């Protein structure tokens, strides 16, 4: 019955089997920990970028128009980035499951923990100027590595949705300055004339406009004010409109 121990002992003596050095396991553990941290950070970056992308495109504010535009809202979501995020959360779950604190509990708990961590972390990250600053650097071609990413995904154009600041008021509407610096004329359609030019909308308001664009004019069929804080305007370099501070 001692055959197994004899065989193994012979193999050890003849150096047919060798012990891996401790440094190998230390490096492996460090690599796994670093990969886990890196994936976690990348998920945070991506989710906070999705929030930025939704705000920059105006899609974030679409639900304010109610049910009729919910279809546009879903169409405007960055589905590719959302899919990558879901895959990365899956990767993160696999990495975390290597640790005893995770595998000793049901998967539901670790998934919930990762999702809560992702939302809180990305919310904290979205409060910084990271994305707006990177976005404008990308526009000025001063962001070498991720420039293209920000140019491709940073501020997608949504059909029939325009976002900006009321530059000045007119009798039949107003001029809208977009984040990219375009000045568009917004005029009311006959269906909702009372919404435009009413005291509700005034100069310097941040607004989202739903309407058909023809050249530099938008025939608006819906306008909503959005919150005062909007970092993409505030962080724009060489801001031509000082009153926006």
């Amino acid at each position, binding site marked *: 019955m001692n055959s*197994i*121990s004899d065989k193994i*002992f012979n193999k*050890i003596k003849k150096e047919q089997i060798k012990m891996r050095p401790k440094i190998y396991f230390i490096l492996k553990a460090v690599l796994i920990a670093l990969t886990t941290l890196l994936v976690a950070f990348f998920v945070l970056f991506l989710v906070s970028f999705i929030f930025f992308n939704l705000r920059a495109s105006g899609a974030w504010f679409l639900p304010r128009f109610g049910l009729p535009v919910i279809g546009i809202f879903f169409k405007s979501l960055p589905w590719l980035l959302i899919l990558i995020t879901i895959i990365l959360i899956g990767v993160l779950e696999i990495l975390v499951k290597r640790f005893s604190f995770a*595998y000793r509990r*049901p998967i539901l708990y670790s998934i919930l923990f990762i999702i809560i961590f992702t939302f809180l972390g990305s919310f904290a990250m979205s409060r910084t100027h990271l994305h707006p600053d990177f976005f404008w650097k990308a526009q000025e071609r001063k962001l070498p590595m991720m420039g293209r990413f920000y140019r491709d995904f940073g501020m997608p154009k949504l059909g029939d949705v325009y976002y900006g600041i009321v530059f000045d008021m007119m009798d039949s509407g107003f001029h809208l300055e977009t984040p990219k610096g375009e000045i568009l004329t917004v005029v009311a359609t006959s269906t909702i004339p009372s919404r435009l030019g009413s005291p509700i909308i005034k100069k310097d308001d941040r607004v989202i406009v739903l309407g058909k664009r023809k050249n530099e004019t938008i025939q608006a069929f819906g306008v909503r004010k959005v919150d005062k804080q909007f970092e993409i305007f505030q962080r724009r370099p060489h801001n031509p409109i000082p009153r926006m501070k």
Partner: protein
Amino acid sequence: MFKSLDQLSDEEIVRMVQSGGLESFGILVKRYQEKMLRYGRKFLFNNNDIEDLVQEVFIKAYTNIQSFDASRKFSAWLYRIAHNQFINAIKKKKEPLPFFDLDVLWPYSVSKENADKETNQRELSQMLEKCLDKLSPKYRESLVLYYFEELTYKEIADVLHIPMATVGIRLKRGKKIMKSLFQKYEFNK
């Protein structure tokens, strides 16, 4: 006062091996080879290469011994290596293994450990001997580790890398399936 090698704990012997006392590894092999063979025979009942597989378990244990944290339990670590080795053997034989087990997804309340272990031990051992081969690997392994290897829920959770509550659920379901199999067996006798 010096302890003889046989009086040393597994973890003390591992520390000796880690610091160069390679021949001490033989003591660990002697201590565990019977247990590993029994675990292998019960879990892989239709496999003829148990000895080779167990030998491979010890070779892997030796190769990776520097990764073992001597503040933890050596037996659970060794059973984990054996579990991986046996699962690979099952995969090679193309026995069906679930890709994903729903039992690890949800939280369950854990039934009390040892509640009926002593009283039902003899009856269960008899049933296990007769019906073990008819159980699916996931129930078979939990029952083997609990009733034959006498590991605790926590140790089984560490060996299988599953939640402790799932260990309880697998044991409960495994016993239920086994009882119904045993009744059929007795009826057909």
